[in-house]
């Protein structure tokens, strides 16, 4: 039996607290598209995407109207192109990215992910071509996202790839310098990347996934903040309890949307990603949730503990609300996409070093951070290596999406637009060189899983 209060609460969450379903993402396997001729392969990819996802956007909109819950993005993820395109006799996969871009625009989705390679242990021929193609692919397309997994708890870290990705990020920034290095906002480097993540830029359709799946990413930092606003003097047991209950409600809506989408599209349900994903809208901020717990600014001492509690309570509440949970599941801390994070950086409360500490306990990593354009490739590789190490040792996903914006200095602001938001240039305070460390290459061996101190 639902009560009047229930109805008013749900509608308040939607209208005042920005409750939404962040994304419905359809994963599509491209393994049956392989062909030695790249043109034929691109045609196969285009046809498979446009037929599989023909009704994705329409279905999303219908569900949105029927339940009165906004569904912000409709997206597609595909098999990592380094695998799907490997049979092609070619030295560049840029035409594949262009075919993906065209197909995604044809069906009307916001982003398509999967221009990806999984190289934590080593490169195949296709992996090398893909990584070399990334800068050009992200320049000549608009909505294609790329990711590279270069570390894992089981395999260690591929330091050759770490070195190369520093250069790839710099090159991508250079090629898209007239658009504030937007290419780098569509490129993420992972350790322990999940194959069922519905969120961009890191979504790809993992090799162990079914032919097609529908997954849903939820959101809702505004709702959690609102719930905590009534608990000014409560202790942390009560704070955790309240976050759990709120996460349960948010996730149930995601589960309903996922179930409906799966039924209407005739595609199996994959997972719900229990993430608190912020947007640049005022009041839709993870930083504000942490501040609601009593921190003057996000980044103040105590921030890592607050984020740990938040992340854990979101999972505990969300797990019971959904039949299958996966993806990144946790709280996101993308700087440019979170108004509270932006303000914290601007007033000096939040630094890249503190953000790195926060990534030890949250769902992803150093995300959407703009740095000075003359940051060296070796420094970016050093940052990637540190994040990958945190993921490898802690058996969790970590990622780096960093944007060295050509011509910009600390004090400047970069505007990416839309959900990607804007970001003040974040200073890298430590200017000492990582050059010789990164130049070594090779592999960092997989870590021991006992004696965990």
């Amino acid at each position, binding site marked *: 039996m*639902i009560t009047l209060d229930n109805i008013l609460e*749900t*509608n308040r969450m939607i209208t005042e607290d920005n409750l939404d379903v962040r994304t419905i993402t359809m994963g599509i396997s491209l393994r049956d598209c392989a062909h030695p001729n790249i043109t034929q392969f691109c045609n196969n990819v285009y046809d498979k995407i446009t037929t599989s996802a023909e009704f994705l956007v329409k279905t999303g909109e219908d569900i949105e*109207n029927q*339940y009165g819950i906004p569904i912000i993005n409709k997206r597609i993820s595909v098999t990592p192109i380094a695998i799907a395109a490997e049979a092609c006799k070619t030295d560049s996969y840029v035409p594949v990215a262009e075919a993906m871009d065209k197909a995604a625009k044809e069906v009307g989705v916001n982003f398509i992910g999967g221009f990806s390679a999984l190289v934590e242990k080593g490169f195949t021929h296709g992996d090398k071509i893909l990584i070399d193609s990334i800068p050009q692919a992200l320049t000549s397309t608009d909505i294609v996202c790329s990711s590279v997994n270069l570390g894992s708890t089981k395999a260690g870290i591929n330091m050759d790839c770490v070195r190369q990705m520093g250069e790839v990020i710099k090159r991508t920034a250079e090629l898209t310098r007239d658009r504030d290095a937007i290419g780098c906002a569509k490129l993420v480097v992972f350790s322990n990347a999940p194959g069922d993540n519905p969120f961009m830029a890191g979504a790809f359709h993992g090799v162990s996934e079914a032919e097609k799946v529908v997954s849903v990413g939820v959101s809702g930092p505004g709702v959690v903040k609102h719930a905590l606003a009534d608990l000014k003097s409560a202790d942390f047991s009560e704070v955790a309890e309240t976050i759990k209950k709120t996460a349960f*409600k948010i996730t*149930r809506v995601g*589960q*309903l949307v996922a179930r409906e989408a799966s039924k209407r599209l005739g595609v199996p349900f994959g997972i719900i990603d229990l993430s608190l994903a912020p947007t640049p809208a005022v009041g839709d901020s993870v930083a504000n949730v942490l501040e609601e717990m009593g921190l003057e600014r996000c980044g103040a001492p105590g921030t890592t503990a607050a984020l740990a509690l938040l992340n854990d309570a979101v999972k505990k509440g969300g797990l019971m609300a959904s039949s299958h949970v996966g993806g990144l599941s946790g709280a996101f801390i993308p700087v440019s996409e979170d108004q509270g994070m932006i303000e914290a950086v601007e007033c000096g409360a939040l630094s890249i070093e503190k953000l790195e500490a926060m990534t030890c306990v949250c769902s992803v990593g150093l995300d959407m951070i703009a740095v000075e354009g003359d940051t060296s490739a070796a420094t970016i590789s050093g940052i990637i290596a540190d994040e990958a190490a945190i993921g490898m040792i802690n058996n969790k996903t970590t990622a780096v999406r960093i944007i060295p914006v050509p011509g910009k200095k600390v004090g400047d602001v970069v505007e990416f637009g839309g959900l990607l938001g804007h970001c003040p240039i974040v200073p890298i305070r430590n200017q000492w060189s990582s050059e010789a460390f990164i130049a070594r290459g090779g592999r960092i061996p997989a870590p021991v899983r006992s004696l965990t101190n």
Partner: protein
Amino acid sequence: MKLVVTIVGKDQVGIIAMISNILAKNNVNILSVNQNIMDGYFNMVMMAQVVDGSKIKLGELQQMLKDKGAEMNLDIKIQNQEIFNVMHNI
């Protein structure tokens, strides 16, 4: 299919008449109504059910009410009840 209709806006003559008329014409049965006036603002939550065999699509009904809402300066929402069920019941 059960529906929840919520209406918020400045009080005026004929709000309930308007909504009940539209629902009746489209074969939607009203199950319960909860309404009050706060500070001159009309607040209403109505539960309704689409009668079996009704041809109306939820999308069309929503559009109709959206147009009417714009005309009378009211915020009218009509949602499938399921979203409230899943969120508030285990």
